[in-house]
């Protein structure tokens, strides 16, 4: 469903990503893990059609990034952790705006919005400006925004960062439900506990390159570690500390 083939991104002399390849199938959650500056956001932006790769290819639901990655974006829901919502619009207005950008018909959009408001428990604050919401409320509204066009694939860039335990758990549950209905999810996080609990497979990224990928058990075994955190530290920890 989501496919990265030899993705590279260079800014002059700086190589932000180099020959990154992996896939995410329908009904699967794949974790993209790496320390700060590993190139996770660059890779996710290329997959979302926001950044143009210097080389390599992206496919989401069979659509590529040629031209303006127009069709690819229709098949994708993108969520970042910095709760970027329009501060002076309400969650309901944000959902309607993005629904219209996805060219959903008004009648269908209205019922879709009500369904998302209910599913992500936005009712109490759906008509309050986003600028006045808590971080957890914003992120719930934001994930509803990413689901508004019911995309087959989701890219989640540190969606649980800076959230309280309750909201974090609520979101993880929402991602599990999405997986259960066959959505492909690429999940980038610093919280390795979340990755261990949610991901079917993980991709370890360091200095723009894939160090390892596989199930959590496979990655741990290859690193000779018992937990994902130990495996992570074994592969990149020393270099980061240095």
């Amino acid at each position: 469903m989501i496919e990265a083939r030899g993705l590279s991104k260079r800014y002059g002399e700086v190589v932000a990503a180099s020959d990154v390849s992996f896939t995410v199938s329908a009904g699967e959650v794949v974790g993209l893990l790496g320390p700060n500056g590993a190139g996770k956001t660059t890779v996710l932006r290329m997959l979302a059609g926001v950044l143009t790769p210097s080389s390599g290819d992206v496919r989401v639901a069979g659509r590529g990034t040629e031209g303006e990655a127009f069709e690819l974006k229709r098949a994708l829901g993108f969520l970042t952790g910095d709760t970027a919502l329009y501060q002076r619009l309400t969650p309901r207005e944000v959902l309607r705006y993005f629904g219209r950008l996805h060219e959903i018909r008004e009648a269908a959009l209205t019922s879709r919005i009500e369904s998302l408001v209910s599913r992500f428990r936005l009712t109490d604050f759906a008509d309050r400006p986003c600028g006045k919401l808590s971080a957890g409320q914003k992120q719930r509204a934001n994930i509803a925004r990413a689901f508004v066009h019911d995309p087959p694939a989701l890219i989640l860039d540190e969606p649980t960062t800076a959230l309280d335990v309750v909201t974090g758990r609520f979101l993880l549950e929402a991602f599990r439900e999405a997986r259960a209905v066959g959505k492909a999810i690429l999940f980038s996080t610093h919280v390795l506990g979340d990755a261990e609990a949610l991901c079917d497979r993980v991709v370890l990224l360091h200095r723009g390159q894939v160090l390892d990928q596989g199930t959590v058990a496979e990655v741990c075994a290859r690193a000779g570690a018992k937990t994902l955190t130990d495996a992570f530290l074994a592969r990149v920890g020393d270099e980061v500390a240095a």
Partner: protein
Amino acid sequence: MRPAIVLHIFRKDLVETLRDRRTVVMAFVVPALVYPLLFTLLGSVATDKRGELERTRARVAAWGPVPESTLQVVEQQARADVVDHRDSPPADPEAEARRLVASKRVHVVLLTPAGASGASIPIRVLADSTNVDSDAMERRVSRALTDHGAELLRQRMTRLGQDASAARPLDIREEDLADAARRGASFAAALLPYLLLVLVTTSGFYAALDLTAGEKERGTLQTLLTAPVRSVEIVAGKYLAVLALTLGATVCNLGSIALTLSRATAAMEGARFSLGLPGAAAIFLTVLPAALLIVALLMAIGVLARSYREGQSYLMPLLLLVMLAGFASFLPGAELSAGTALVPLLNVTLLVHDILIGKAGPAQVMVVWAVSLAWAVLGILLAARVFQTEQVLLSGEKPWRDVFSPGVRGGRGLTPGNALAFAAALLVLTFYASALVERRGGVATLILVSQLGFFLIPSLLWCRLFRAPLVDTLQLRWPSARGWVATLLLAAGGWSVGAVVWEQLLRFPGARAYSDWLGELLGKQGQLSLGMALVLVAFLPAVAEEVTFRGVVLAGLRRSGSRWIAIGGSALVFGLFHVNPYHVVAAFAVGLLLGWVALESGSILPGVLIHLVNNGAQVLLDRTPALAGWMRSPVVVVLALASTALGAVLVRGTRRAIAERPPDAAPVSLAAP
């Protein structure tokens, strides 16, 4: 580009901006309050000061043997009190006078050197011109002394038995030819252009920042980029939102300024100003292209910044440049000329100035409008280009490097952006170069040079520059049989479209005079032989203008993805090249027909033939008045219109019948000139 998506982005951005109190206050409330308050405050301060000076008696020092009679006259006529009388001046009279004026003990010192006597007594009047009170009292005292001097002379001449009137060989009276309305307009003409430009900039300043750098800082621009919208749709929606806000604020503030100036001049002696609705509309239309340019620059520069604060410092130089351009209205001698008409914003300042003092003619208005519009198009293209640079949108380091780096988007062929940039550059070139050619050559040289040098050759060079294949770009294809039948019908009746529109336009004031002038101009081709006239007036423009407008411009605009944008845009550009508003409308109507035919037939040739017949008929009409009468008869016009309509229907879809390669595989954006 999808208009519905642009509308959604426009609507959301406008709503979001109007919910931002800071933007609304800065765009609407502050200017609406500041102008009346400023003028009322300044007017009131000035009036109070004037009244205070009128009521105050001048304090005068008299040093040395100033005649007593003179002092009495000063006391009575200048309403002065001699507060410091010294028989001998101090050792350093200037320093002492300066000290006394500074300490406000006296306003003016009258100084006569010790020992002065005889028929002419020297009196020095010492005052400080930088001190408002001292300066005003000096004028009052000097006027009294001058009158007193004249009176003394008259008395002396009478005593000598001479005619006293001989003492005044020239009886000078100053009279102002300008009436109160013109004096008021002159006052407004100095202030209004400056205020207008500055308020257009400040009105859009915060909205543009909020929707560009502000959105980047808040991360919402990236969220928007993940939606299936083209960057050109984003920039168009945002641009329209900032423009709407700016124009709304401009209209409100224009009213506020006009009202304020009207009240301010009412308080002035001998001046009156009132800006009626037609005047306000003319000024608004003049400022409109300047607003288009300013908003484009605000957005292009604003989006380069990574934060709101950084954006403020980026935009400040633009505000200073606008203020500098607006300041020209204060400068004596700054005039609208062929040179200044080229300079963006400065030309608008000078034109608004000239409109207010009643000096601007329709030609000046059109030239400044066309030049400003060309600048605005370039500004919008720049904004579109900046918005398509991913390093700019994602807050990369030194993003401007990518904006101007070549080959960011490779590929062959023309785009809407470079087609419009070509048209804008050609518009400016045509206007200035044709004025030069007209002065140096006759009508034949003018047509030859303009058609070849301004249209045909630049169009071919432009295609080569952008590696646009000529066959596809210019649609150099042979139409189908049905296409030819349709073309013949259109050629037979196509002239009627322009003629009918023209007849309707003649009802408007000024159109008849323009029509007569145009007739006179076209009549000059009567000096040429018929064959030469047909080549120069019919054949050459039919080929060169079709290559430019239905070739290069239409081909570029076709890649916007909308055929209506392509047809409407190319017709508008074609119309604008005819400069006069009446001619613009008629040419626009003809341009719509020719654009439609070019797209439907898939060939440039039908347009060339229709254009050729239309212009050729014009040549023949000028030489055969009987033919002109026959062609204007209602029956012929109706038949011609019917033939045109039938041709337009018949030509539909004929492009599918001819072999062609689709040149526009993927729609591209407005940028990349």
